[in-house]
């Protein structure tokens, strides 16, 4: 085993084959033992199963766009209609401040990543129960299921984000180099969603009533996140509290990405830190209960 890993460093292509050999090779020894309580995530195994992750994600994307009449339009309509409603009620009627940007662009630049996040946690928390037939018939690292549920949203995010870019041209908000940060922030949101989603998906397997918790949680969470209002509305001494909600820093970060504002690195750092902690809690809890899924699902 040690020799193989050393060989891996010198030649990436061989490393690839070795990893595959290790999990799928003819000499691979599978050891099956009782559940051991807390155990580490086998990231190497997860990587060896990345093809399955890709295939499952593609399946869900294809099915989603084949099955629904609206198809891609749905990805646009959901955040767009919300934007229209929020613009009317918060922007015009309530005169919500928007840091000097046109309110539609201001709220939409937060709604695009928020919708991605909300869909990601909703679909990942239902993902295990929805894949019960797979879980009870085949072995693979179960983490693949919530991961692929989150991956499906990337296409929707891409579509909604391109609408935003077009809207910015319409409202005269220029594109900036900050846009290059978008993939990093998207990844951070995915980590947060994965942390929450894995926890909820594992809980939903054991306790079906958790699915109702999710929709309530998403609603509540949106209002404690600066989606419809700017961070500047919150007094400076309380900002740290706001940023303990990882989505605050990330949504505000996305606003900086799209609107070209300066990044609030303090907020980003606090939120990213909490996001990583959430991610670890979620994944570790998931791994702890993973072995029991097939028996109770």
């Amino acid at each position, binding site marked *: 085993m040690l020799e193989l890993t050393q060989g891996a460093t010198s030649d990436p292509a061989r490393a690839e084959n070795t990893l595959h050999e290790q999990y799928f090779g003819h000499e691979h020894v*599978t050891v*099956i033992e009782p559940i051991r309580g807390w155990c580490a995530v086998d990231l190497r195994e997860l990587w060896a199963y990345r093809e399955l992750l890709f295939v499952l994600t593609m399946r869900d994307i294809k099915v989603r766009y084949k099955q629904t009449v609206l198809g891609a339009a749905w990805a646009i309509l959901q955040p767009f209609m919300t934007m229209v409603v929020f613009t009317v009620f918060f922007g015009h009627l309530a005169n919500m401040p928007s840091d000097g940007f046109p309110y539609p662009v201001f709220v939409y630049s937060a709604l695009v990543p928020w919708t991605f996040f909300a869909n990601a946690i909703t679909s990942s928390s239902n993902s295990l129960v929805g894949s019960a037939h797979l879980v009870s018939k085949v072995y*693979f690292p179960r983490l693949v299921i919530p991961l692929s549920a989150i991956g499906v949203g990337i296409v929707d995010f891409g579509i909604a984000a391109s609408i935003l870019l077009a809207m910015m041209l319409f409202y005269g908000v220029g594109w900036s180099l900050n846009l290059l940060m978008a993939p990093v922030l998207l990844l951070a949101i995915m980590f947060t969603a994965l942390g929450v989603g894995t926890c909820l998906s594992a809980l939903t397997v054991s306790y079906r009533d958790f699915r109702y918790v999710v929709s309530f949680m998403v609603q509540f969470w949106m209002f404690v996140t600066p989606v419809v209002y700017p961070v500047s509305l919150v007094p400076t001494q309380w900002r740290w509290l706001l940023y303990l909600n990882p989505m605050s820093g990330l949504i505000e970060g996305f606003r900086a990405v799209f609107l070209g504002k300066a990044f609030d690195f303090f907020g980003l750092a606090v939120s990213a830190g909490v996001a990583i902690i959430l991610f670890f809690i979620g994944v570790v809890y998931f791994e702890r209960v993973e072995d029991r899924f097939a028996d109770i699902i």
Partner: protein
Amino acid sequence: MHATDAVAIKVQHLSKQYIIGRDRGGMETFREALSRAFTASFRRSAGVAPREEFWALKDLDFEVARGEVVGIIGRNGAGKSTLLKILSRITKPTEGRIEIRGRVASLLEVGTGFHGELTGRENIYLNGAILGMTRAEINRKFDDIVRFAEVEKFIDTPVKHYSSGMYVRLAFAVAAHLDQDILFVDEVLAVGDAEFQRRCINKMRDISRAGRTVLFVSHNATALRNLCSSGILLEDGAIVKRGAIGEVLSEYVGSADLNRKILPDRRSGPNTPAVLTGITVAPIAGVVGDPIRGTGGFAISLEVKVNEPGEIAVFVECYDDNHQCVFSTGSFFENELNGRRLECGYHLFECVIPGNLLNDGIYALDVALLKNRQTIIVSEKAVMSFRVHDDFDIPDGWNWRPVGVIRPQISWRQSVRRPVDQLT
């Protein structure tokens, strides 16, 4: 080859315990879990057993050599499926250790993950990936898979438009092209029509002969005899016999002659209106344990415990070795019993199967309990099996036995035919 290399699967002290919830199948809401945790201490003091333990497998020890094709036999609830699930890593054992050397594929059903909206082509890649094939591997075998499934023309059509036969053929074709060293196969051969089953068994035979290690689980004694070199007989979660397939099968058939099964009360609960507690098969003029002769009839007795008064009926289906339903019957077929209300307690249902009906062979019974003519409250598959020994009298000098699913008494006549008869 090193001595240990010859062992493909090594199972040591394997046990699996299930905890069965008192109320329902095991699903509980978070609120219930909280209140259970809260009241647990009170309940224990009240003397109510909180949960029932059930050992699906008890201390299994066996080895499978590389290239060995093993049939796993046993009645329903003997632990066959649990064993296969543990070997496939779907569920974890409670105790023990298993070592498996080589690439593993398990086929617990065909077409796992198939999606109706996707085309045949997309489903091949999807199902292949789920079964552990790489994309390159599927690319290489793609044409063979399509040819085997005979779906060339429809490969880009969503599978929801496939006929059920095409669907199953495609699903099996993907599975049949796995080239893993070790295969675990559950009752997947029991799908499709008779012709397709024959093809599957042939394909499986090719696979078995190609030096692969295969573990088959089946009720089908004929298929197992054809495919396997050795067998394991499971009974109530323990190995009763491990040896050549012929010996294991005859042990299994031998034990089927007991013709009695008392069902553990584990599926019952206060929420089940009625439960099947026992079943026996005995010749009409005999007691349980006497052999069943083809010419004489036999009686099937079902003991039912009714927990909630109501109109309870039983329904029985009898299957032969090839999963063909030979006959089915229900207590409500009897006018007098139709609509009868049963009070709480134990009830006995009996039906008599006439002689000269079933051919020599092993049969399995599925039993269902119905409530108020609509709801199936209990459905037990292959709940017991029995053997019919045909004592049909064949005249001296004929070394021949009737073939066929049924063996009715058929009379013959012969007369000389005169041309004049044709005119009248």
